[in-house]
């Protein structure tokens, strides 16, 4: 049971990502079906009309099925955690408000699934039922949100939550169906669908912005809360990605409404839509993380100050030698950390935890030195990879196309340095060290990096042409999404938040780099020419940030 509680917080966030993604796709699919495909059907050839309707319907089916499962899993997880920590009859647990809200959401999603099952063109009655069930789902998830738990400005926050979620669905949720339409329909029909969808997306943007205004008033309130709390930092990251999405959406709007003569216009729109989907997924990951942190407005003490951020991010020379006890800086740093720890203990602020979580142990100067050393060497390797990839992009240095082999250095670094107490550098033997799951993870990671480097090298040499080409960008996007989905500061633990502040830009750049590499691989050529400079540039920035990383 303790192991379950240890995992509860993490599993909860992962399930929230799945649930939010499925629900956004479901609501977006209904909007696409009812507000794009159906009204445009009389204006398109019969084949295109049926295909567009089918795309909307299938997105609804998949979204509803995934949403039902995710809601069931999330509700079940909450009940299991409650049962594990509270000595109460199961019947009492079932009466919790979140169970009721989850039940309503399940009901609405199941109804939507049933309504989408028939393949025939939906009658007006069925369309109305779909719309009502979609609004019911929106109401149910709003009722299960944090807004309902607020004492102040509850109505405003409920409206902001509903507006924000509806906006995300209208803009991001229907993108898979739009992408399908751009691929399958005749160019004229695809352009018509794209134009109508872009109007819908513009409405979605408006709703999202309205939601942000409400959240700012109710959950954040002041600029200091943006950089001083985990909630604010994550919201700021969402805002950065929103700007990226707006740039992509704006470009699509131009391509669809004003640049009709561009011969490869629709292909560009497709690439931008794909990038919008990936960045949208990253945004949903942040949104899911936000559901598990207290609003910034509630954490008025122990915030990170601007001065502390400036101090932490002021560049210092990287730590490139192994920390040792002979290093005089280590005792000095430890003395400083001890003083901070004592001050923190003396403050005795009330702490809050999710089940399975506890106080972070006191910081150790030796650990910090090792961590900085690891980050800085990893930074050098990523920087080298980025620079070599830039050289490769120039096309003037043939040798640079072998840049993936630099990842072998990273693999060697993980193998040697991740667990200095274990084989091959430490005293603990290989087999004995593999009893520690963390060591196993590091060793597997090293092996995967080797495989990954060789696969990408083959791509560069032209030996691979299939899906293996997408391993590198997929890994970058997945890694970025994971970083966004799981980085939290507990209450206002300053150190955790300062570390998080350095990792959030890395995650966003990883997602951007992955999108650019996808685009380079898939064309069209004019976009690929730009994209092949973007992702190495992002890697260079990631390398520089890692080199500047500090924990004290």
């Amino acid at each position, binding site marked *: 049971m303790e192991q379950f509680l240890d995992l509860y*917080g*993490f599993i909860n966030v992962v399930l929230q990502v799945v649930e939010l993604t499925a629900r956004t796709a479901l609501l977006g699919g209904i909007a696409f079906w009812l507000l794009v495909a159906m009204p445009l059907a009389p204006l398109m050839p019969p084949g295109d009309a049926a295909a567009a309707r089918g795309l909307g319907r299938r997105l609804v089916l998949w979204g509803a099925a995934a949403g039902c499962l995710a809601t069931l899993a999330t509700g079940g997880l909450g009940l299991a955690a409650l049962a594990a*920590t*509270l000595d*109460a009859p199961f019947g*009492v*647990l079932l009466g*919790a*408000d*979140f*169970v009721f809200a*989850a039940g309503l959401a399940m009901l609405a999603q199941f109804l939507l699934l049933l309504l989408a099952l028939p393949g025939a063109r939906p009658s007006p009655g069925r369309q109305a039922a779909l719309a009502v069930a979609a609004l019911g789902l929106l109401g149910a998830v709003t009722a*299960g*949100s*944090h807004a309902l*738990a*607020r*004492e102040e400005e509850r109505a405003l926050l409920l409206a902001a939550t509903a507006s924000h979620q509806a906006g995300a669905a209208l803009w991001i949720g229907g993108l898979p169906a739009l992408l399908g339409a751009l691929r399958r329909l005749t160019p004229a029909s695809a352009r018509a669908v794209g134009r109508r969808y872009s109007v819908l997306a513009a409405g979605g943007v408006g709703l999202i912005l309205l939601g942000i205004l409400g959240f700012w008033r109710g959950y954040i309130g002041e600029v200091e809360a943006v950089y001083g709390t985990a909630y604010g930092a994550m919201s700021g990251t969402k805002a950065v990605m929103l700007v990226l999405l707006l740039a992509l959406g704006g470009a699509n709007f131009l391509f669809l409404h004003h640049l009709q003569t561009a011969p490869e216009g629709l292909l560009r729109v497709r690439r931008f839509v794909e990038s919008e989907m990936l960045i949208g997924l990253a945004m949903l990951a942040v949104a899911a993380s936000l559901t*598990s*942190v*207290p609003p910034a407005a*509630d*954490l008025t003490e122990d915030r990170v100050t601007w001065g502390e951020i400036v101090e932490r991010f002021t560049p210092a020379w990287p730590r490139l030698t192994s920390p040792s006890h002979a290093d005089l800086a280590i005792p000095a740093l430890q003395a400083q950390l001890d003083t901070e720890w004592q001050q923190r203990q003396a*403050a*005795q*602020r*009330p702490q*809050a*935890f*999710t*089940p399975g*979580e506890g106080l972070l142990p006191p910081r150790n100067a030796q*650990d*910090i030195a*090792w*961590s900085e050393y*690891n*980050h800085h060497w990893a930074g050098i390797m990523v920087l080298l990879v980025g620079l070599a990839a830039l050289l490769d992009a120039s096309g003037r240095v043939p040798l640079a196309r072998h840049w993936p082999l630099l990842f072998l250095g990273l693999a060697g670094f*993980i193998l040697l340095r*991740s667990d200095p107490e274990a084989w091959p550098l430490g005293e603990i033997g290989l087999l004995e060290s593999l009893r520690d799951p*963390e060591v196993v*993870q590091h060793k*597997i*990671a090293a092996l*995967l*990096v080797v495989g*990954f480097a060789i696969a990408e090298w083959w791509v560069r040499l032209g030996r691979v042409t299939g899906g293996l080409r997408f391993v590198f960008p997929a*890994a970058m996007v997945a*890694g970025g999404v*994971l*970083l966004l989905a*799981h980085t*939290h*500061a*507990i*209450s206002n633990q300053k150190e955790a938040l300062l*570390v998080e502040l350095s*990792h959030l830009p890395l*995650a966003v750049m990883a997602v951007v780099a992955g999108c650019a590499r996808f685009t380079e691989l898939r064309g069209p050529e004019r976009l690929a020419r730009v994209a092949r400079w973007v992702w190495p540039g992002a890697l260079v920035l990631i390398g520089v940030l*890692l080199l500047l990383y500090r924990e004290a």
Partner: protein
Amino acid sequence: MSRTRLACLLVTFAAPLLLLRPTPAAAHAVVIGSSPAAAAVLPALPGTVTIRFNSRIDHARSRLLLVPPEGEPLALALAPPGEHTVLEAAIPPSLPAPAGGWRLRWQVLAIDGHITRGDIPFRLGTP
């Protein structure tokens, strides 16, 4: 923490799923005030204890324990819900009250379904 962070960075470039690991997550309900306050020094046990949260609480699915300096924690009977954000309980007057460090151990279910727990430490003794 440092290795976890580094692992996440390496994940960015290599092995997204294998390095998935449990990490702490905060929760919605946090304490914004309590009686006794955290780190308070009291001459005797108070008659009632109160904790105020930032969000509405499901009282029927929350609990409050009083942890003495030594011995087993005592589950306190929660007072009927008054304010939505407040957890209140009476301390039995007959409870022995040795000097030393005490803790008010709480667990609440917020209306939005998030479970949060924590301790409020206080001391009995001469202020």
